[in-house]
C-alpha cells in the first residue's frame, strides 16, 4: 500500500514537472440515461469515432477521455465537472446535451481556466454580454436553428402558429429564435415541464386553438412521445408539424416510424451533405455502429476534431491557454458541415438547411436536404459580446 502510494506520487510529480503535455485529458459529460439518452449516446459515439480514426490520439498526443453520465440533472452535472477540473485536471470539458446542465457547470469550468467545448447546448445566456473566452461551440447557438425554421414557416405562408417548447432555458431560446424570423400570428404558446411524456393536455389545446401549423422543440423522448401522440389524436389532418432537427433526426425517426413522414425541419447538417469529410464520417459511422448518424453524432465527431486541430496547432503546449484559445478560434479543422467560422462569442457562423423526412432509395425513413434557409448565419447575441 505504502509502496503503491509512493509510486503514484512519484508519477504525479514527474507528470507535473513535464513542460509540454504528454497527453490530452478530456472530461466528456453527457446525458446517457433517461428519455434523452439517445442524444448523449450519439454525441459520444461520434466523439469516439473521431478518436478511433485518429488512432486514439488528439493532436498527436495520447488522449484520455473520461465519460460520465449527468442523468440530465444540473446538480449531478456540477459534481461531475467539479471532479473533472479539480481532481482529474482535464484540459477540455465537452459532451453536455442540455442547456440547464451546461449553465449549471459553466462557472465551475470557466473559474478553473478550462475550455468548455459545447457539442450541443448553446444557451443565449453565454452568447451575449456574459460570453466567455473559455467557451467554444461546434454545434449552434440555441436560437439559430429555430430562426431558420421560423423563416421557412413565414416563407411557406403559414399565418397562425402554435408554439410548444419545454419550460427551461433552451426551450425559451428556441421559441424566441423562431419568433425572430416568423412574421405571422401566434395562436398560442405552451411550455410543458422538461421531461414531460404525456401531451394529452397540450394536444387538446392545439385542437381548440386550431392553428395552421405547430412549431415544437421537444428534444429526445419528449419529441418521440409528442409525435406519436399527435398522430394517434388524428390532428394530423388539419395541422402541419414543423420542427428542428432536435425532434426529427436519427435519434427520433426510428422510434416513431411512419408518422414522421413529411415533417419539415431545419438543421445545420444532414447525413446527405455532399463533401468529402461528411461522406467519410457517414460511411465510418454506419460501418461501426450500424445506423445512420444524427446531427448530434456529427457534433460529437466535430468536437473531437476541433480539439485535435487545436492541440496540434499549439504543438501540445496545453499550458499556454492563450495559444489554445487562438487555435480554437482559428477553427482550422475540416468540419463535416464544410468550412465555418467561429464568432467572437465562440459560437459558429454557419448555414442552416431545410430538410424533409422521406423514404430514401433503400426504403429507410430519413431526412433529405432540400435547400439552404440561412447562409453564413451568425447568432443574434454575438453583437453584445464584449470579447474581441
Amino acid at each position: 500500500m505504502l509502496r503503491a502510494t509512493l509510486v503514484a506520487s512519484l508519477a504525479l510529480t514527474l507528470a507535473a514537472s513535464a513542460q509540454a503535455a504528454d497527453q490530452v485529458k478530456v472530461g466528456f459529460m453527457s446525458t446517457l440515461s433517461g428519455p434523452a439518452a439517445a442524444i448523449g449516446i450519439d454525441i459520444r459515439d461520434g466523439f469516439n469515432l473521431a478518436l478511433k480514426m485518429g488512432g486514439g490520439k488528439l493532436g498527436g498526443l495520447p488522449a484520455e477521455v473520461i465519460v460520465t453520465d449527468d442523468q440530465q440533472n444540473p446538480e449531478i452535472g456540477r459534481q461531475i465537472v467539479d471532479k473533472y477540473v479539480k481532481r482529474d485536471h482535464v484540459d477540455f470539458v465537452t459532451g453536455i446535451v442540455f442547456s440547464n446542465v451546461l449553465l449549471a457547470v459553466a462557472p465551475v469550468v470557466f473559474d478553473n481556466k478550462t475550455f468548455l467545448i459545447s457539442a450541443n447546448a448553446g444557451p443565449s445566456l453565454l452568447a451575449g454580454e456574459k460570453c466567455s473566452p473559455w467557451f467554444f461551440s461546434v454545434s449552434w447557438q440555441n436560437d439559430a436553428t429555430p430562426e431558420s425554421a421560423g423563416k421557412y414557416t413565414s416563407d411557406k405562408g403559414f399565418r397562425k402558429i402554435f408554439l410548444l417548447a419545454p419550460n427551461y432555458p433552451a426551450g425559451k431560446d428556441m421559441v424566441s429564435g423562431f419568433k425572430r424570423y416568423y412574421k405571422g400570428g401566434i395562436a398560442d404558446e405552451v411550455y410543458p415541464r422538461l421531461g414531460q411524456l404525456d401531451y394529452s393536455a397540450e394536444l387538446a389545446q392545439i385542437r381548440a386553438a386550431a392553428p395552421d401549423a405547430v412549431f415544437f422543440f421537444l428534444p429526445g423522448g419528449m419529441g418521440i412521445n409528442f409525435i406519436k401522440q399527435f398522430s394517434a389524436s388524428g390532428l394530423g389532418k388539419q395541422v402541419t408539424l414543423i420542427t428542428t432537427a432536435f425532434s426529427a433526426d436519427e435519434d427520433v425517426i426510428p422510434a416513431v416510424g411512419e408518422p414522421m413522414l413529411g415533417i419539415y425541419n431545419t438543421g445545420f447538417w444532414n447525413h446527405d451533405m455532399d463533401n468529402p469529410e461528411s461522406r467519410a464520417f457517414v460511411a465510418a459511422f454506419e460501418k461501426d455502429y450500424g445506423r445512420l448518424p444524427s446531427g448530434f453524432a456529427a457534433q460529437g465527431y466535430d468536437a473531437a476534431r476541433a480539439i485535435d486541430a487545436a492541440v496540434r496547432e499549439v504543438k501540445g503546449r496545453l499550458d499556454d491557454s492563450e495559444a489554445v484559445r487562438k487555435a480554437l478560434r482559428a477553427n482550422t479543422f475540416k468540419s463535416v458541415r464544410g468550412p465555418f467560422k467561429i464568432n467572437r462569442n465562440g459560437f459558429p457562423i454557419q448555414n442552416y438547411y431545410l430538410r424533409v423526412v422521406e423514404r430514401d432509395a433503400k426504403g429507410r425513413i430519413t431526412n433529405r436536404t432540400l435547400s439552404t434557409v440561412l447562409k453564413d448565419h451568425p447568432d443574434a447575441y454575438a453583437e453584445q459580446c464584449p470579447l474581441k
Partner: protein
Amino acid sequence: MSVLILEQTLNGLQFGLMLFLLAAGLTLVFGIMDLINLAHGSLYMIGAYLVAAVAQATGSFALAALAAVVGTAAIGVLLEVAVLRRLYTRDHLSQVLATFALLLICNEVVRLIFGSQPVMLSLPPALAGPVQLLPGFSYPAFRLAVIGVGLAVALLLYVLVARTRMGMWVRAGASNREMAAAMGVDVKLLFTAVFGIGAALCALAGAMLGPILAVQVGMGESILILAFVVIVIGGIGSIRGALVGALLVGMVDTVGRAFLPMLLRSFLSPAVASGVGPALASIAIYVLMAAVLFWRPQGLFPARG
C-alpha cells in the same frame, strides 16, 4: 371551448384512473399492513418492462399485458414472502430504508437486463388511431381503452372489497389489524394476497401507460410520489378514498396544465403568464394535498374512523 373541456375531462379521467390502479395497491398495503412501501413504483416499472419484453417476443399486446399482470403478481408475492413480511413489525424508518434499497436494486437489475435507454413500446395496431366521438372531435382509441380498463378495474375492486368475504377481511384489517387477527382472519395469507393484487394492479397500469409514456428505468419513482399524494388525499387504507383522490389529482393536474395558463393570460402579460402558468400548474396538486390535510388531516375517506 366545450370540446376542449370535454377532451380535457377525458384526459383527466384517464390519468386519474391510472393513478388509481397504483394507489389502490399502495393504500391497502399502507392501511392494512402499516407498511410504507417505496418499492411499489418498482412493481409498476417491472410490469411495464415485462409488457415490453413479451410484446416484442410475441407481437401480441393483449398476451403481453396478461403475462405482465400474472408475472408481476408472482414477483410481488415472492417479494412479500421473502423480504417485506419481515418488516411489518419494524418501525417506519426501517421500512423506508429497506424498501428504498429494494427500489434501487430493482432499478439496477432492470438497467442490467434492458440497458439505460428507454424501451419503446408501440400502441397495439388495432387501437393506434383516433376514434371520432363528436363531429370534428376525435380522441385516441387507446386512451379510451385505458379509461375503459380503469373503470372496469375500479368496479371490480369495489365488488371485491364491498361484496366478498375476502373484501370483508381486507376492510377489517384496514380498520383494526389486531382485532381482525383475534377474530380468526388469517392475516398472513391475507397480506400476501393483498400484496399480490397490488402488484398485479401496478403491472396493469404499466401495460396501459407504457405505450403512451416510455418504458424506462426510474419511471416508478415519479409516479409513486403522485400515488402517495393520492392516498394521503383519499385517506390511507380506503379504496374509495384512493379512487376519489386519484380522480381529483388527475383532474387538477390536467386542468391546471390546460386552463391555468389561459386564466393567467386574461390578466397578466403573455410572457409573464407563460412563465408563471407551468410553475403554478406543477404545484397545483400539492396545493390540493395541503388544503385537504389542513381541513381533513385523516384524508377524505379515512379507513379508521
